[in-house]
Structure formats: structure tokens, C-alpha cells
């Protein structure tokens, strides 16, 4: 499949985002392109050895729901790997936020020891990490039974 596409004159055929500057680097960049294509091919075949954290069946299910039908397993793995990378990016960002939160106010040496401090993924850190990726996550702090729940008795009587 890859050789067939490469026979079509580089990346001119597939992809809709190709600019008009196609006709330029044809001769000189041909080797580079071939290297890139070889690298891509090798990468895709190496994907078959790699098992992503996100299972293939899950990815296939959701890709099928969105209209992406492909019998090729390598493409499914590609999507899975990309998603896993996205997930690890979010996790690392929120981990940094969590560690920054722990390290900032050093009041008590005992409780803030990094080795016994448990790193918990909270909604707060997650929303900060997702904001950089373009996802706005707002989480309510608590839910109350009535508007006057939890207020001081004096104010409640009023």
C-alpha cells in the first residue's frame, strides 16, 4: 500500500492539506522522501510488535462509530498509539501540577516529604492540564441539598 502511494508522486495524492508547493522539491527531496516513507513503513510494521495500553477493540469500536472503517490493524494501532501519547501528555502535565502544589507551601517538614506524599490526580490539576490542550473542564466543588445547607445557624434563621 505504501509503495502504491509513493508511486503516485509523493504526497500529492493523499491528504487534502497539501499546498501548491508540490512541484518544487521533486528531484532533490526524493531520497529524503523515500527515507521518510521507509521510516514510516518501518514504524507501522513495528507497531505490530508494540501493544499499546489502549486495547485495539476499544479503538476499533469508537473509530467505527465515527465513520472510520479500516480493516488494517496497523492504522488502528497508530490511532491507539497517538491516543496513548495524548493520555500520557495529560498525565505528565497534571503530575507536574500536583508536584508543584505540594512543593510550593512548605509549612511542615513532616507532612510534605515527597517520599511519603501520595500523588493523587485531582480534578483541579486535571483541569489545569487540560486547559493547555484546549479542553475546558469545570468541576463543582460540592453539591448541597438546599441553598442554606452548611451555613451557620444564625444566618440560616434569617
Amino acid at each position, binding site marked *: 500500500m505504501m509503495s502504491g502511494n509513493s508511486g503516485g508522486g509523493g504526497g500529492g495524492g493523499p491528504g487534502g492539506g497539501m499546498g501548491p508547493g508540490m512541484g518544487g522539491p521533486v528531484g532533490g527531496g526524493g531520497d529524503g522522501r523515500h527515507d521518510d516513507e521507509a521510516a514510516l513503513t518501518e514504524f507501522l510494521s513495528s*507497531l505490530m510488535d508494540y501493544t499499546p495500553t489502549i486495547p485495539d477493540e476499544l479503538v476499533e469500536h469508537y473509530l467505527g462509530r465515527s465513520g472510520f472503517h479500516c480493516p488494517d490493524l496497523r492504522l488502528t494501532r497508530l490511532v491507539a498509539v497517538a491516543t496513548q501519547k495524548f493520555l500520557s501528555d495529560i498525565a505528565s502535565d497534571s503530575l507536574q501540577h500536583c508536584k508543584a502544589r505540594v512543593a510550593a507551601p512548605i509549612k511542615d517538614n513532616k507532612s510534605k516529604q515527597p517520599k511519603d506524599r501520595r500523588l493523587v490526580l485531582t480534578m483541579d490539576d486535571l483541569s489545569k492540564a487540560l486547559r493547555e490542550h484546549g479542553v475546558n473542564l469545570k468541576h463543582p466543588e460540592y453539591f448541597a441539598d438546599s441553598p442554606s445547607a452548611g451555613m451557620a445557624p444564625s444566618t440560616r434563621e434569617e
Partner: protein
Amino acid sequence: MSGGGGSGGTGDEFGRAVARAAVAQALEAAGFDCAHRSAVDAVVDVLLRYITHLGRSAAFHANLAGRALANELDIIQALEEVGADTDGFAGASATGHCLVGSGVVRDLMAFVDKDEVPFVRPLPRFPVPRVQPQPSVSFAVAGKETGMRHVPEWLPVFPDPHTYVRTDAWVEPPPTKDRVDKVEQVRQRRKAEKSLLSLQQRLAQAGAEGFHPAAALTQDSAEKGKEIQAAGTKRNPFLEPALPPGEKDVSEVDAPPEKKKLSVLEAFAPAIQATAVREIDAETGLDRNQRSIVPKERAPVHLKIGFGRKPVAPVLNSGALDLRDDPSFLKEEAKDDKKRRAGMILRASMENPQELPQL
């Protein structure tokens, strides 16, 4: 994020549960010790939307290029559009480059080279199809004729006629009210006739031969209904033949006539209360009885069985106790026509027992 994962929250529990496990594994690999459940659910939601968005973009690019099936370059293009990383990728600013050498791929390659964390459990292919859809057979394959010119043979066959033609099930018609009433009328008429017949026989025998009414009753017991039997099984002293005067000393006390009337009433109750009574010409009987209904004197002691001109059938009104003094005996039939007729028949039979054909 686009609306690619619009309906992800509803009815997709299994996929979400699997994704939750995968996310937990990735978080643990990233270095987290634990996580809030709501935070994990939020990450799962974002993840599924990401996958859906990638699939939609890739499918869009493939369709744009005139293909039905997407290939890896579509995915790479979609990845470039989504923005795989916040920091961007090398070559993102270059517009006219080949996708093959895209920085996204290089980032992915670098990512893959890191440690591998596979999913813990093997998963079946889901969603599992529950029912194999039966492919419908076309007319040509089934070998049938469509029967209509506008229906070609390559269309599936029509369903069987029994699936859409409705025939009424045969329901036994319930017995109509008229029939029921008529049957009931006939039954009561028969009962009245039976009671009449039995009474006439008893009276005739008791009056003519001085026969014991009990024996006569036992003869008729097989034919009679229960009502007559209940009244006549005991030996009725009032139906015995009259003693000749002077034979027995009796006190000058009025024997209560109610007993006789009640017993006779019991005997005639079904006949009187029957709604349908055979039409008997009671006009002549009425005339005959009218003259003799009111006697001049009243015998206090000796009670004569009513073979004479006196009507024995008691009045149905509870107020009237003495038949002979009550001129309204005949007037009471204004209340109920059929009861009147029954009374007529009885009186007629009292007076002329020999004329009746039943005897």
C-alpha cells in the same frame, strides 16, 4: 473539541469501563499513586472524544480525496490538525511538505521507543452482534413471481399473506337475553302446571275418596317440584274430610284460618309467582265465583274444604286475613296480572275439579 463524541455518555458503558481501566493503567505508568474517580471519568470522556475526533477527521480526509477507506496519511493529517502536542511538532509551520516526513510521526516514534505498557486483560471484539441478521431473499433467488409489474425481481420477497391478512376468529355467540327469558318462562310455566296438577289430584282424591293425602302425596312426589313437596309432605289435617256434625265435641274456638291459608299459599307459591302462566279462560270462573265469594255468615268452628263456591286461594296481601269477608280478594290482581290469572286458575280448579282434563 468537536462534537464527534456527542452520544458517548449514553448506553456505552462497556466501552467506558474498558477505557477507565486503560486510563488507570496509563496514570499509574505516568507516576500517579491514586486518582479521584471523577478525575478518571473526566479523562475517560476526553480520551473517547479524542479517538472519535481522530476517526472523523481521517474519514473526512479520505472522502475528500475520493476514497472510501482511510489510510495512514489521513490519520497523520488528522493528527496534525488536532494538535498532537501542546508544544507542537517539528515542521508544523511548514505548509507544503509531505505528510510522510511529518513531525507527528517522529514524535510518535519517540514515544513508542519508551517503555511499553500493554493492557492487562484480553478483550473480546465488541460490540458483540447478538442476532445474526437474516438476509432477505429476493424474488429471483426464491424463484417466485412478484405478481406486479412495477416490482422488479431483485427486490426481496413479500411477507406471507397470513402475516398481514386478518381473519376474524369464530366466537360462539352468547345466549341472547330473549332466549334466556323465554327458556326461563317455559320452565316456570312447567313448574306452575306441575304444582297445579299435583294439587288438583290431591284435593280430588282427598275430597272424593277420603284418601290420606300423605299417600297421594307420595305418589305424586316424583312428579312434583320441591315447593309442593315441602308443603305437602306433612299430613295436612285441614285437607281431611270434614267430620259429620255431632261426631266429635270440639270447643267453640275459632281455629286460626291462617294456617290453612299459609299451607295452601306455600303450595301455590311457585304457581302464583310464576311470570308466565298458561292462558286459561277465567272469565266464566270469575263470574261464578263472584256470587259466592261473600257468604252471609261465618262458621267459627267447622272449616269446610273449599270444594264449594268459596275460593280457598288466599290473598297475597298480608293484610287480608279472612278470605270470605274480604271483597278485595278479586281486586288484588290489579297489582299483578299474572298472579291474578294464577288465582283464577286455582279457583276454577277448586270449583270444578271434574271438568279439568288433567284428571
